[in-house]
């Protein structure tokens, strides 16, 4: 059998799989109005502009020098104050950043929305005997 007969079906399956991922909304996600969605998208661009991913992670994805920021806005963590202070004065490891007021607003909106998407702490998963994991209800 010619290799092309294996190659083409795999490519077709991948195309369908990819299209489904692009087009289906993610379940159990918070809903935001258009205005907030725009702010979130701009906030993500601020995160990229100052290359925060070089040191920080979102859901464990990113750099390794600083802590994961997924739930930095969780209640009781003073997230907003910490983000504003640390980006202005820096730390031993982190430089200060010339973030404008509107950029900061968008960045904070992004982190707040990110916090509502889920929990990045791996301890909240339940492990099954087949090696699979599931989130706590």
């Amino acid at each position, binding site marked *: 059998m010619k290799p092309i007969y*294996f190659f083409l079906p*795999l490519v077709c399956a991948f195309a369908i799989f990819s299209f489904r991922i692009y087009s289906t909304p993610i379940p159990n996600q918070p809903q935001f109005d258009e205005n907030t969605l725009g702010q979130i998208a701009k906030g993500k661009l601020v995160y990229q502009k100052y290359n925060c991913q070089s040191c920080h992670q979102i859901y464990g994805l990113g750099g390794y020098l600083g802590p994961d920021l997924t739930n930095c806005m969780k209640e009781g963590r003073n997230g907003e104050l910490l983000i504003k202070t640390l980006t202005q004065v820096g730390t031993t*490891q982190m430089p200060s950043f010339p973030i404008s007021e509107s950029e900061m607003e968008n960045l904070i909106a992004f982190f707040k929305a990110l916090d509502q*998407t889920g929990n990045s702490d791996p301890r909240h998963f339940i492990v099954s005997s087949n*090696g699979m994991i599931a989130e706590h209800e």
Partner: protein
Amino acid sequence: MNKWETNFAKLFINTALLMLLAGILLGCLAAASYIWPGFLKQDLGFISLRPMHVSAVLFWILLGASGCVYFGLNQNLPNSINKHLALTQWALWIIAIMGIFFSYFQGKFGGREYWEFEPIWALPILAAWILFLIQFLVQARKMKNWPVYVWMWMTGILFFVFTFTENYLWLIPGFRKEIIGDLTIQWKANGSMVGSWNQILYGTSIFLMDKISGNNKTSTSKVAFFLYFLGFFNLLFNWGHHIYTLPTQPYIRPISYAVSMTEWVFFAKTIYTWKNQLSEAKKHFSFFPYRFLLATNFWVFLNLIQALFMSIPALNLYTHGTHITVAHAMGTTIGINTMIIFATAFMLYTNPCYNFLQGNKQLNRLFWLLQLGLLVFWVSLLGAGVEKGLWQMAESRGNFGDMMNHLRPWFIGFFIGGILLSIAIIGLALNLIWAYIFCRKYPEKEQELKPIE
């Protein structure tokens, strides 16, 4: 043989070697931040050095892979490479490299992990790969009954174009607004993209085995095609193991888990062929390209075990977001990708005018220093990762800063390993560049490799 065409392989490999040298130096500077926090913070700092290092070494792999394919094409189809296409492809790369590093030095970012540069510079890279794809398809059409490595090269080039484009879907606002959907697509693209350049480089290793053994048994066997399709299947569907903990589409996790577990077949195959490789090694051990391929197999073995365990979701909870992931990335890009490109480069530059063949002691030492340095580097990262993994799963855990201080001995090991492998890589790269310059000085002594019969 037409000099121009051999030179395209050399042109890409030489450019790749320069990127490797830059990447190594930048990597050492970036790693210093782990030992001396805040190193160069006010000037470049980790925030610029990390993307510079990552881009340089990624370009080493991508340019090196392009050089490998040009070498293979020229061996299979002498005098047929379209010079204008190849030269334009190379020129686009140079434009992209200059633009990217200029903007990094100015502190301008805007992209995403591994591709932190401003998105405008992705355009020349994409254009270069589209030209590469056209070049490849035009040439490969002339070949009948493709050996498996030609299929692998085609798959790698085609899917790099696709995944690189997919990686920039975030530029469309509709994709960016949905945080989790956006992250899913980002890591879908990144995961499959790694599979794409692996297809090109694993294909190259099969091509080199054909050249060394003098027959095409490996590249036309049914087993080779079976493993190619299994690898391709994994490229398409196993990327979800990067995002097991992301609250994304629920079907992604079980699909990726099941597909990733098919890689045990590669593991079994590696064990099965181990004995044959050792007996073959006696024949070719003094031949550097073969030795690098043998080293590749050793690193495939270690990284495959690691990848298989990391792909089990329950264990992934401990490894995700830790230095175990970095160990895997370094083990595969240095231990596998870099070794294969070095094997090709040594094959390309092995020539009567510059002697790589007769037990060159300096090269011997550099080869072993590379393996030792990488082992120290890899083990240190694994150690740091295990400690961080236990910290992140502990019922009551201390703060992040204390945990990082606790990892310091592992970071020192990682730094020392990095210095050792840097010395080895710089030495090997300079030897290759010197061989190229020396042979150009005495062209009458140069003797090209014979094309495949």
